[in-house]
């Protein structure tokens, strides 16, 4: 049985491990120590660990300036923080020397089983190559440029090209950089390229949907439900993006990651959808017909002769008028008549 001394950094991660096989080891700032701590508040030789006759380890403060403090034991919650001069080490004890922390672990302590690699991991690995990221970004830029070119009939100026390109590229870079920064802070892993590739892939999917949605609207008159379909597509796309970003950049448990990446976008989109649905029944001066126009190559439906179309038109005239509004009007008219009668009486009275 041996003792492992782990040096813990500010982010509570192990930065160094030392194995103590002998009977004594010292901890301190000078280079003679078995455990060297890079901390100005630590004495050159701050403390020692000694194995006693029964094989237990004892930590002893060597009259250090700032003392030794037991912070906690991660296996035993009953241990309270206290300043110690001599301490029988338990497996899991966390000790503060100056501003540095060390943890003592028994070599016989069992460890948790391995976590299987997430299948997304291989995807991220593939996306992480500069080639894939560049190709995806160029695809997005090219597609945006092409759609912008198709979307206008007037001359396509180079300033317009530059604007579209810079908008797209900067947008993707900012997204990837933001997550890379968060990842760097939280997990010390930037993963800039996978973030960039994921953003580009999502942009491609959304652009493809926009084009396809236009095509559907042209053919099937989806003017009213198209905003809802847009929200639906985003409701799939955004959680996937957020899950990937959280997987790469954040240290959170899988189920929280799953819940968060679904609930956060859905709460915003749900709001937008509620507004959209609320507006559906509202009065509108503009006729609810599709305004999308495409060349007949994109026409999937069989046109009918105009006469056939007009033959069904009379059915359009059967529009129910809500009874309550009619009643309201009648009531007010009746009231008016009453008032008139009353005022007539007044005149007669005079």
């Amino acid at each position, binding site marked *: 049985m041996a003792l492992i001394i782990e040096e813990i950094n500010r982010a509570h991660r192990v930065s160094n491990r030392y194995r103590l096989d002998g009977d004594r080891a010292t901890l301190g700032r000078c280079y003679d120590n078995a455990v060297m701590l890079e901390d100005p508040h630590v004495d050159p030789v701050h403390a020692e660990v000694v194995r006693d006759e029964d094989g237990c380890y004892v930590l002893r403060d060597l009259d250090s300036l700032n003392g030794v403090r037991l912070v906690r034991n991660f296996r035993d919650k009953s241990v309270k923080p206290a300043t110690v001069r001599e301490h029988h080490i338990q497996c899991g004890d966390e000790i503060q020397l100056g501003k540095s922390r060390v943890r003592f672990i028994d070599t016989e302590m069992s460890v948790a089983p391995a976590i299987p690699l997430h299948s997304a991991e291989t995807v991220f690995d593939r996306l992480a190559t500069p080639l894939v990221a560049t190709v995806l970004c160029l695809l997005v830029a090219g597609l945006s440029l092409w759609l912008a070119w198709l979307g206008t009939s*007037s001359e396509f100026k180079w300033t317009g090209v530059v604007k579209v390109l810079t908008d797209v590229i900067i947008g993707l870079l900012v997204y990837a950089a933001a997550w890379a920064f968060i990842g760097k802070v939280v997990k010390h892993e930037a993963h800039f390229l996978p973030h960039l590739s994921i953003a580009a892939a999502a942009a491609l999917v959304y652009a493809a949907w926009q084009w396809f949605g236009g095509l559907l609207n042209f053919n099937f008159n989806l003017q009213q439900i198209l905003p809802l379909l847009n929200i639906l597509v985003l409701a799939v796309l955004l959680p996937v993006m957020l899950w990937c970003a959280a997987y790469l950049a954040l240290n959170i448990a899988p189920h929280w990651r799953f819940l968060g990446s679904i609930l956060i976008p859905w709460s915003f989109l749900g709001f937008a959808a509620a507004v959209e649905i609320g507006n559906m029944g509202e009065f509108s001066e503009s*006729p*609810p*017909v599709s305004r999308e*126009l495409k060349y*007949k190559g994109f026409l999937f439906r069989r046109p009918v002769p105009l006469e056939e*179309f007009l033959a069904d038109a009379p059915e359009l005239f059967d529009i129910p008028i809500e009874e309550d509004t009619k009643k309201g009007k009648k009531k*007010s*008219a009746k009231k008016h*008549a009453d008032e008139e009668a009353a005022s007539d009486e007044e005149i007669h009275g005079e």
Partner: protein
Amino acid sequence: MSDLYTRLFSPLLAMLLWCCAGAALAQSYEQLYSDYRGSLYQIRLIERSSNSKAGLGSGFQISADGLVATNYHVVSEAVHEPDRYSLKYLSVDGKEGDLELLDVDVINDLAILRQKGEAGKDHLRLANTPPSKGETIVSMGNPLDLGMTIVPGTYNGIATGSFYDRIHFSGSINPGMSGGPVINRNGEVVGINVATAGNQISFLVPVDKLAALLEDFKQEMSAGNGAIVLQPVINRQLLKNQQRIIDQILGADWQLRPLGDALVVGEIVPAIQCWGNSTDDEDEPIQQVAKGCTGQDVVYLSESFDTGRVEYEFFWLESNDKLAPSRFYSGYADEMSGFYPGNSAGEDDVTNFNCKQQFTTHPRDGAGDKEQDAEAGAEPAQKPPKANGNSDPAIARTSICVRRYKEFPELYDVFYVSLTVDQANRALVSHFTLSGFTKESASAFTEKFVSEIQWH
């Protein structure tokens, strides 16, 4: 002293002379004003809760028992929201009183009211014969609440190019004068101020419309039906009016005019005036030619609601073959995305549009009705410029939308638009809006309209 004497005396002498000369000699404007000022009123629309005026107009007394005439649009708020608005009059001498709304004619923008309590002493007579063209007539009213004003002008007959008879009056009518009388030199009412087009061009309702309304009202009264409920009256007037317009339109000989690949509808009746327009800039990738016709006047129902409009437009869009079809179509969709019905109506007035949108085929060149061929044969000059020998039917996306009037359930607005999608760099758009027509009228118009358009 003698000077003063003559100065005072000479008008008197002139008056005496005038009396002797009889009615052939007209009164001076001063005389007209002082003679008839007692019959003139300012009509005030009062918002009940704030008890302050929400609208102003003019009016005049037309009978000894206190009937007052004005424009419907002066009092329309009081018709629609009697709980919120009341009507008051203010005489030239500052006498105030309440008014009771009795009858309206929305088509000719007239209303008859009665003074509650004591009626004014003076009233104006209505002329039996229209003035002769060029005759000087005098408009009276209270413009912008500045005080009673008289404006002399010229009678120029009935204005052409409208479904509604209006006297063309060369004189300035201003806001606030609406509903005021226009009298001839004999002091008889010949018209009622109603609208202005600026620059001394103004319009009056001919007095025979008021006489007819008064006659109707008197008949109703003598029938003893009590107070007239206005809503059915307005409904009846609107129904009659739309029938009159649709009969005129369907009975007329429809002129066709070439536009792109097709012959489209041009002038039908003089009341629907046509215009044309095309892209100014030669460098624009899509060249557009527009031809449209609009009925000039609408029936005013309330501030946010008008009706009785007939409107149709055609657009021909064309680009050179180098422009990719997708780009042509995106420009085309942008140009045509702003279609709205031609009349204004609010949520309280109409239902939402009920629409139907489908792709339709339109046979080309002679495959249409025989009747059309006969018409085309009669006028061989009207050959479209682009008979390109294409015999496939044209394919268009056609939409027809209908909305119903909530208070007049027999009336509808109909909106039709058809946009071709079968050619790579050319497109024809045909559109019409009818407002305030019955199902039968609208269906008949639609059928006629689509059958007139010829494809080549």
